[in-house]
């Protein structure tokens, strides 16, 4: 049980770190993130928690993809004016 608790806290930490560059601001991101974590505060089933952790890791990947896309678009804009 406590091992899952640790994984969840680690996940929260990583998500907070990923959210530092969020387009709508870090405070906006933090508020939303906290709400999501608090919504699932009462979940006790082991399987269910594992699924939620998986979903959290998926969100990290999505954020990463978003940042990469943003970088790609910025670079492209710099090279090709018209597109």
């Amino acid at each position, binding site marked *: 049980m406590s091992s899952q608790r*640790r994984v969840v*806290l*680690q996940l*929260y*930490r990583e998500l*907070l770190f990923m959210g530092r560059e969020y387009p709508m601001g870090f405070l906006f991101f933090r508020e939303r993130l*906290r709400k999501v*974590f608090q919504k699932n505060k009462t979940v006790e089933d082991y399987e269910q928690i594992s699924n939620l952790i998986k979903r959290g890791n998926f969100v990290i990947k999505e954020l990463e993809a978003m940042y990469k896309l943003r970088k790609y678009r910025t670079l492209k804009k710099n090279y090709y004016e018209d597109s």
Partner: protein
Amino acid sequence: MMSLSHIFKSRVIQLALLRNKSLSRSFGGSMVKFRYTLLPPVIQNSSLFHTFNTQFIRSIPLLSNRQVRLFSEDGLPPTWEEVNKKIIDVLSAFDKIAPENVSLGAHFVNDLGLDSLDIVEIVMSFEDFFDVEITDDELETIFSGKDAADLIGRKLEIPFPEAAL
């Protein structure tokens, strides 16, 4: 002035002569010398000091596991008072804590009414402010400003007052 014969009584040189090694090598490079200085003065001044073999010296862990420590950046590491003050500042800046409730000994959960997610956020800001890394294991041991100060002080290698010789 030390006479030559006196120097040759030193066991290090005797051993070096026996093994036919160069003298400079038997005295050890600067790294070995540096580690000597970490030994307490009692041992350094004793005659036993010369009989320590380099294998033993290498087995003593260095004080720091950081490769480079830049003293040129801001001189000396912070004092305990500075660390404590900075921790109070960080805690008062946190939006869920009323600044008048902040004290070093206040328990995060029981006294300040924070949850585990808040503690993660606070620890992350400590990491930023003090430029240290705090692992998950250490995170679970932090329950008050005092815990954090102890941990961060140890990481910054601030000497304890009673340990100063």
